[in-house]
């Protein structure tokens, strides 16, 4: 029966494994692969961090999302109902026309007569035949300015 190996004999055999080495070209590939892996690991780490923060934000905002969305929709609807500036201007003109049309013609005539009494004689009476339709007030003012010149 064979004797088992001694410690020294075993050591001598295992020390042969110290001669197992890759050649120089292995390390060239090793270094370039290591750099690639380190870089892709860095990118992955950054993406993971971004994904982490996005997930955290989503978790925090999710409970208030319906209320926030409702408020946003309400705001949009209100803005739409209130209209654009051009629409507002048209609306204002329409209101003014209505106002002009609703004026008491008799009252304005008497006011005009009174103003004629206190005005200088060069101001010709223009209250007769006053047309109070929309835009005619401007025409009256222009006529008044013309009569003062002559």
């Amino acid at each position: 029966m064979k004797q088992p190996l001694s410690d020294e004999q075993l050591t001598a055999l295992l020390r042969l494994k110290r001669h197992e080495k890759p050649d120089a070209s292995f390390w060239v590939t090793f270094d370039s692969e290591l750099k690639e892996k380190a870089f892709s690991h860095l990118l992955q780490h950054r993406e993971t961090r971004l994904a982490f923060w996005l997930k955290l934000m989503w978790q925090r905002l999710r409970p208030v999302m319906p209320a926030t969305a409702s408020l946003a929709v309400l705001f949009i609807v209100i803005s739409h109902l209130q209209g654009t500036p051009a629409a507002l201007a048209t609306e204002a003109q329409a209101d003014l026309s209505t106002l002009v049309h609703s004026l008491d013609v008799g009252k304005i005539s008497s006011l005009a007569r009174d103003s004629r009494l206190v005005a200088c004689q060069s101001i010709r009476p223009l209250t007769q035949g006053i047309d109070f339709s929309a835009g005619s007030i401007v025409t009256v003012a222009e006529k008044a300015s013309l009569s003062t010149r002559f």
Partner: protein
Amino acid sequence: MAITKTRDDLLDAEASGIQEEDRALVGRIRDGDVKAFDVLVKKYRERLYAVIYNITGNREDASDLTQEAFIRAYRSILKFKEQSSFFTWLYRIGVNTALNFLRKNRFRRFFSFENIDEEAASSEIVEKLAVKTGGDRTTVLKELQEKLNESLQKLSPKHRAVVVLFEIEGLNHTEIANVLKCSEGTVRSRLHYAKEELKALLQEYQDLCKMP
């Protein structure tokens, strides 16, 4: 005795100098100097690769795992507390990476052996074996390499790690205990068991290894 003491002192001084150098490089890495890490990689890649290769028995896996170990070391550089040497810390990362890999892939194992340099072919053991079998040294060496690796792979990963660190890498019991984060007693116990197993497996080479 005086000569031995001087030699030990020289070895201690050398080890101390290497540690100081490594600490300086670690300091530079922490300051953001990536090139300092390249220096450490070039310095230790062969030894780390050898450990991982001998534990896994597959050169392709060993290459990937060594790279992974370096990346982990870089990421964890701030956690290196300098209580142990940098190399012990790096070994620890490498061994853990290899052992975790083996744990996850225990049913999918393929061996792929590394080249063995011609220097081994001129060793006494190989010479005697070549004479005994009548074969050429290269063939004999290849067969011996295969037998050694097969025997090593029959050990459990934790026993294999201890044998690799002690017999092949030449670490002492204290250093192995630091690497494996276990007691020296555990290291000695595992080493004893592993060696007994290997002796039984490699019995056929008993005649070739007669020591003077």
